[in-house]
């Protein structure tokens, strides 16, 4: 049960801790300004509206401002108090003003720099999972710092947000690649595969290997042991791609193109969960400090965010009709 000083019974159904662990969603993507915080707050609002007890955790290093999306002032306590003052995590949760939706504010330095080590991160995640909520959405902010990547990798749903422009795609690709490499590295270390992988890579020309996809394929085909490891450890390793600020049909195809490219270059399957279009109303709402999903129930953006959130819950892809060549959609 929530025990924070701001607790309002009308907003939170008072209930005993169910003991059920919440699902953690992490939202990253490399570049700032692509709308990660907007989407995180909107997805959280929608999940809460559907009756899921939801908590938003602002881990944006550069500027924790998720609270602004709900017209709230910066809460008194932040994640720093959890680390430094040992204040229990549930006491840092503040209500957002929307039923079923709570919020934990980050603070400068809470997840970046060298300020927290690996065991602290794991401790934080244990406590996040222990929160009495169905879903906890972690807004990671920009960048590919190791702590950001590790937080991303610890989540149950890994969500990558980008915009259909080349700079955003560059940063997003670096983010996906860095997270994926970090995952593989820990896998290789755990199962003591480094020596054989280096050996294979050294002789890659002889095996006809030119990409990471080829390398993994080769290792899996050569050994049942390695194949089993990949099946066990990587089958659930899925990133969900969301394209924000879409302006035309070609932009919608970006997610589909990335799916093909991640597979062909990295050997990494990703799911294109959906997109949200560019809409001036979004900026207006943010400036007015109103939750977009509530103020614009009939907007196409609202419909699109609902659809992509449902896809992330179910693990299903957006269905894109590729009528191709000219990049248009039928």
């Amino acid at each position, binding site marked *: 049960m929530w025990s924070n000083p701001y607790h309002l019974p009308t907003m939170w159904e008072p209930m005993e801790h169910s003991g059920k662990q919440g699902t953690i969603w992490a939202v990253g993507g490399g570049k700032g300004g692509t709308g990660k915080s907007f989407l995180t707050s909107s997805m959280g609002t929608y999940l809460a509206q559907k009756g899921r007890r939801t908590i938003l955790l602002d881990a944006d290093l550069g500027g924790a401002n998720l609270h602004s999306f709900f017209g709230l002032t910066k809460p008194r306590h932040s994640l720093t108090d959890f680390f430094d003052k040992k204040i229990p995590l549930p006491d840092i949760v503040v209500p957002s003003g929307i039923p079923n939706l709570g919020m934990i504010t980050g603070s400068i330095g809470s997840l970046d720099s060298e300020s927290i080590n690996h065991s602290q991160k794991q401790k934080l995640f244990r406590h996040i999972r222990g929160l009495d909520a169905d879903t906890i959405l972690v807004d990671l902010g920009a960048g590919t710092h190791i702590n950001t990547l590790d937080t991303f990798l610890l989540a149950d749903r890994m969500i990558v947000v980008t915009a*259909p*422009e*080349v700079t955003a*795609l*560059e940063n*997003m*690709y670096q983010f996906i*690649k860095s997270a994926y490499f970090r995952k593989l590295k820990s896998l290789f270390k755990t199962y003591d595969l480094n020596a054989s992988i280096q050996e294979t890579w050294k002789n890659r020309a002889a095996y006809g290997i*030119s*990409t990471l996809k080829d390398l993994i394929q080769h290792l899996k085909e050569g050994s049942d042991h390695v194949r089993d490891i990949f099946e066990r450890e990587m089958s659930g390793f899925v990133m969900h791609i969301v394209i924000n600020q879409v302006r035309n049909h070609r932009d919608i195809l*970006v997610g589909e*193109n*990335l799916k*093909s*490219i991640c*597979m*062909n*270059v990295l050997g990494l399957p990703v799911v294109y969960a959906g997109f949200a279009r560019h809409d001036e109303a979004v900026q207006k709402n943010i400036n007015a400090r109103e939750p977009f999903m509530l103020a614009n129930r009939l907007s196409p953006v609202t419909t699109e965010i609902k659809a992509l959130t449902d896809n992330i819950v179910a693990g299903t892809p957006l269905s894109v009709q*590729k009528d*191709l*060549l*000219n*990049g248009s959609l039928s």
Partner: protein
Amino acid sequence: MEAFHKYFDLLELPPEAGIEAIHRNYAYLRALYSGEAIELTALHGDFSPELRQDYLSRLDDAHEKLTLLLENQKPIVTPPTARMDADVRAWIEDIAGFSGAALKSIRERMNVELDDMFSITRIQPQYLDAIENECFDSFPAEVYLRSYLIEYTRFLQLDTRKVLDDYMPRYRAWAGTRRPAPPAPE
């Protein structure tokens, strides 16, 4: 069959995919990976020109092999309106080449309307018309014309291979005049 699984994989399709999906994905992937898409620009060195060439040639190969495989497997449905009697058969055998105009006269001789053809092949009559008039710029790419032409010949129970061999070179000659000439070898 192992190899065919790899071909389907390359075209990002499940092994049970049909010929239409194969043509569609091929056209999509070829356009994506041979162009200057921003998604590829974002990869920088991770997708070198060599990798791109290698990928495209494997893609072409997969498309060709799968097209052949599925063309041979596909059962020929004889539409009720396209029965070929002995007279017509003999007449067709005397035809020297399969131009668009020749195809049109065969179709008319067999009392087949373009709409009949559409009802079975689901190819829009405007494209069937473009085949008969050799209006090549109606087709966004060779692969479309080729697959429509295959359906066309199959509907009329013509020898697909023979028609393709006669018809497609005219398309390629036309397409060649529209593209800049390849750079001269050094």
